[in-house]
């Protein structure tokens, strides 16, 4: 049975799309047939981050409105056979995401895929609520920063009250946190909330910690999910998070300052 996973945060700019792309690609690398859907109608960006912007013909709204078939809109990733991208519309507004239409499309996707990853828009308006409504699991992307933590708390509350599982009194959405843009050096200097602080404040299980890393910008520059960069600390941290999501035990990595070798110090580049 396919699982619907929403990547959400409330706050914008914390790394939702980067995470949705990396997470979906990570699940595909682990052998699961995965589709990642852009729910950010009007502000399409997943296609760019996934590097398939020139292959978009039909979109999510076309399929909801019956103007295109699902297989016409799905874009198969060129790097991994298990991975598909479902882009959204750039021209419509968020209201075009009708709940019954989304439900129909998700039900159709469930037949073919193991995981359906939904990349939520920022905010707590219609688009974000629609993205989380059908979720079985949620990945809350949080930065170690006050406004992000507060908004995460808000979205956790919404998942507990407004998701379909909540409305139907089913087993609650499984909610886990992914702490991104973590800078261990600043944490050590007392300038940044620690993993433990954020875990204690939000009191939800931790899926992983992604260190702030140059490789994330490099990945989006080139339209490659960061997990395909095997040398990148962020990419490896995402793969750890995917493994934990699949129920495996993994030690936390990249949460203590990296000791720079003299070579690295001189020649830079992490």
């Amino acid at each position: 049975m396919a699982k619907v996973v929403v990547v959400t945060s409330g706050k914008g700019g914390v790394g939702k799309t980067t995470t949705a792309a990396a997470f979906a690609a990570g699940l595909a690398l682990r052998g699961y047939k995965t589709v990642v859907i852009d729910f950010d109608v009007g502000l399409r960006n997943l296609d760019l981050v996934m590097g398939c912007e020139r292959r978009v013909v039909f979109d999510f709204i076309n399929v909801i409105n019956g103007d295109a078939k699902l297989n016409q809109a799905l874009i198969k990733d060129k790097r991994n056979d298990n991975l598909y991208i479902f882009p959204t519309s750039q021209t419509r507004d968020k209201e075009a995401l009708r709940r019954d239409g989304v439900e129909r499309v998700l039900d159709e996707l469930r037949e073919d895929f193991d995981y359906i990853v939904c990349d939520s828009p920022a905010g707590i308006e219609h688009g974000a609520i629609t993205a989380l409504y059908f979720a079985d699991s949620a990945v809350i992307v949080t930065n170690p920063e006050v406004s992000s933590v507060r908004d995460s708390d808000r979205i956790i509350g919404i998942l507990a009250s407004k998701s379909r599982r909540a409305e139907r009194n089913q087993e609650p959405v499984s909610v886990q946190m992914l702490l991104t843009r973590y800078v261990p050096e600043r944490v050590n200097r007392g300038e940044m909330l620690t993993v433990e602080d954020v875990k204690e404040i939000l009191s939800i299980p931790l899926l992983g910690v992604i260190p702030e890393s140059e490789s994330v910008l490099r990945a989006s520059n080139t339209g490659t999910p960061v997990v395909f960069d095997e040398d990148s600390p962020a990419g490896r941290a995402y793969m750890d998070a995917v493994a934990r999501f699949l129920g495996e035990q993994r030690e936390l990595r990249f949460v203590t300052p990296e000791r720079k070798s003299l070579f690295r110090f001189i020649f830079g580049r992490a």
Partner: protein
Amino acid sequence: MRRLFEMLFPPRSESAAIARERLKIVLAHERVSRDGPDFLPALQQELLDVVSRYIEIRPDMLRINLDKSGETSLLEINVEIDGAKAKSATPDIAEAKSAIVAALEPAKSG
């Protein structure tokens, strides 16, 4: 010399600790008004009105919290009065305290 020392051993910033405390307080507030029963904000306001008759307190000095664990619910009311000024009519804080307790008494039995 001092600058050199600070460059080698930067002073530890405590801003993360401040962030943690601020978040804890604001989220405790927001969770009550979000998850709690509808009457909690009104109850908080009325309690504040009663207490304010005797002591000058700011709205953030009175906090209420409803905790549910299993079968039992606990309504917790915290009023911070250290440093608060008693109203001139009741100059003594201790006197004000007992006045508030008395004022809350009917609510308890009712």
